[in-house]
Structure formats: C-alpha cells, structure tokens
C-alpha cells in the first residue's frame, strides 16, 4: 500500500549511485568511489549530523538506519525535494546542483533538521 513510493525512491537512489560508479570509473578506479558524495544517516529519529558543507554538484546519500520510516523534504528555494516515505534500511541520493543553503527536514519528525551549505 505505501510500498510503492519508497521502492520508486530507492530505485531513484540506485540509479544515481550507478551513475556515480560509471563516472568514477572514467576518472580513477578507487573503491569506494563517490568523491562528491556524502552520506548522512538517520537513526533514533536524528540525523547523524546537524549540518554539512558540500560543493555544488555533490550528492548526499540519505540512509535510513532507523527502526521507523522517515519522509525527508526541503522547501528551501532552489533545493525543493520530497523523498516520500523512506522505509528502514533504504537509502536515497539527492543531488545539490547549485550554491546556497538548504534546510532538510523530516515531515514526520519535526526535530530532525539538517542544514546543507552548498559552496560554489
């Protein structure tokens, strides 16, 4: 019933991860790759950190390592997204294309806040 959106989201994450693997193969063959990919995990209804600074074009891999579902979203100008229901054990990559500041929050758990500073 609610499985569909999250599977879609997981698939989206996989697609992005695959693109990154391909991209990295042409540059270096190191493992793990993902220069420009950062990981933020969620557990105990908290993000693993309150803020993160990245470069424009980087992606953040949001991993739900919690025992409950989350629904991450951002309404910040230029960074609007909605990950929909993210089940425990799933992950999704979100690209941050341009410089600025994004506030990522969970729609279910308002205490969860992550400030993403994207440098040019």
């Amino acid at each position, binding site marked *: 019933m609610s499985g569909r959106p999250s599977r879609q989201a997981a698939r989206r994450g996989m697609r992005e991860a695959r693109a990154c693997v391909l991209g990295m193969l042409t540059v270096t063959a190191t493992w793990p790759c993902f220069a420009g990919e950062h990981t933020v995990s969620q557990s105990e209804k908290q993000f693993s950190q309150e803020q993160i600074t990245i470069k424009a074009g980087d992606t953040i891999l949001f991993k739900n390592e919690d025992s409950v579902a989350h629904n991450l979203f951002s309404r910040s100008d230029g960074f609007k997204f909605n990950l929909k229901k993210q089940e425990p054990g799933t*992950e999704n990559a979100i690209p941050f294309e341009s410089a600025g500041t994004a506030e990522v929050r969970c*729609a279910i758990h308002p205490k969860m806040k992550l400030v993403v500073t994207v440098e040019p």
Partner: protein
Amino acid sequence: MRASVVYSVGALISITLSAYSAPLVYASDPRDQVELKTAYRRPSEIPHPDENRYTPEREKLGKTLFFDPRLSVSGFISCGTCHNPAFAWGDGLPRAIGHGMKTLGRRTPTILNLAWAPSLFWDGRADTLEDQALGPIQAPGEMNMPIGDLLARIKSLPEYGPLFELAYPGEGVSQKTIAKAISVYERTVVSGVSPFDQYIAGNERALTASQKRGFALFNGKANCAACHSSWRFTDDSFHDIGVPGEDLGRGAFLEIEELNYAFKTPTLRNVDRRAPFMHDGSEATLMSVIELYDAGGRVRRPTLSDEIKKLGLTSSEKQDLVEFLKALTSVDDPVMVPAAPR
C-alpha cells in the same frame, strides 16, 4: 550494484535495531523495568531559549496579556478563553468557538508542557512559541485583531507601560515584546506531579493494580508508547491514526501527500480533563479512543500509520488502559488571574 548491497546491510541494521528495542517494550526483567521508568522521568528544569530568557517580570507581563480579552477586537476573547486552566488548558469543546461565536475547524489543544515542544499546532505549522503567539490574535476566526490596532490599544492602557519596561527594558510595546512575553508565560505552564510520576519516582503504591496493568499494556500489547513516548507522552511527530474526516492536517500544510490526515501526537498529561478528544473532538470519551485503537483506526487509508493495527484487547484490558490514562492527571494549584491594566 553498490546501492543494493548497502540496501541489504541497511535492512540488517534495522532488524538488529528492532530486536534491540523489543525487550524494552515488554520490560519483563527488572533491569528493563528500570530503563523503561527512566524514559518517563520528569525533567527538573524548564528550558527557556537564550533569545528570550526567563524573568519573573516577563512571566508576569506574559500572564497578564494571556488573560487579557482586550487583545481581541471584540474585547471579549482572551487566549485563556480557549486555553482555559479549568479544562487543563483546553476549552472542553469539540471544536473551538472564536470571533463572532463562529465554530473553528479544529479543537483547541492544551498549552501544557509546550516549553519542550519542537513544533506547534495540530499540523506543525509553527516552530516556536514566539512565532506562534501573534497568529491567534490576528486570525479572523479567533481574536480578529489587526496588529496595528493591538499596539494602539495596549499603548492606550498606561499601566501596561511599566510592565513592558520591567520585562524588556528599552524595547517598548511591540509585536516582538508581546510575543516574547506570552511565550515566557506559556513555558511556565507545566503539568504537576501525578500519581504516575510518584510511581516512576519509586512509590509502588501510587498506582492501582489496574493502572499498573494499563502501563504494561501501554508499552506492550497496545503499542501506545510507539507514539505517546517520554514524560510528556508524545513523540512530537505526525501520524494518521484513522480518525475519519476531510481535514488533511500535516499533508495540507506541507503539500506532501504521504502526510495526509496526519496530526501531531497530543500529550496525554491531564488528558481526562480534556474530553472530547482528537483534532476535531470526534471521540467523546477515553473508552471510545481505546475502541478506535483496538479497531486499528476507524478508517483505513494508504496513509494510516504502520503502528496502527487491530489490537485484540479484552474489555478488562481496555478498562486498564483508561485507568492508566487517569493516573497521568495532576492536581495543580488554582491559577490566579492578574488584574487587567487600566
């Protein structure tokens, strides 16, 4: 490929996590009992933000404003009209009645213990009390008072001047100082020590046998603590628990479909003083609330929380849960209403 590998590792982690939390939920052995009780212990201090520290002068000004009906355009409705201490800071109505005796869309929530709340309103549309306070004053359905008129009216009452000066020296009468003072006062509105708190503090006799069984059900078979957690009995989060109706709640505010029909988990402190229940007052008694949960919600929708399932409670188990909820009520000192400045 990599993503799917991580996926299964993640799944393992979540299995371990839930296996870990299972004993806590049922709390059969004494060590888990201690852990469970610790999770419900009252804090010793009220948190006040650095930008708006507590002073007795601020509390006094805030309380005076909170109970002053002249903050409404009619001169007839104060914050305390709807958030009435006689009804555990609600109004005892299914849905609030505001300016022009019009019925509003939602029920008045209590303002108890909001110093600890990370988001406000049934749909979470305000983040802080300071952000929230001017809303009801200006809302056409509530107090209907344009902010310019509000400032003019307060300034026309000379006895307010010194109260503002003592509370916020040099800052004068402004939207900001009004909102700040009301917020300081609201943070002091905390539910007192209930039989449940005495039990948590070690007095085994503070609860009846039925209430103790209710507490075990609350944390176990009935799964209430999945959402009504901590000493305030709320996870401060938003869930669809299957209350019928058209109000989309959090989903409408965020424009996120998955959150349709989700409302903020209300505190259960002093809850037996606040019937009828839910965001729309649709459940008349605590027993009917328990019936709703026992049925796995009154409506089943795709947005229904995973934590809401048919419970299979017996009638004595239902009674035990109701008895337990009553143990969360404190006998609080009467509230003295300050004289309105002239």
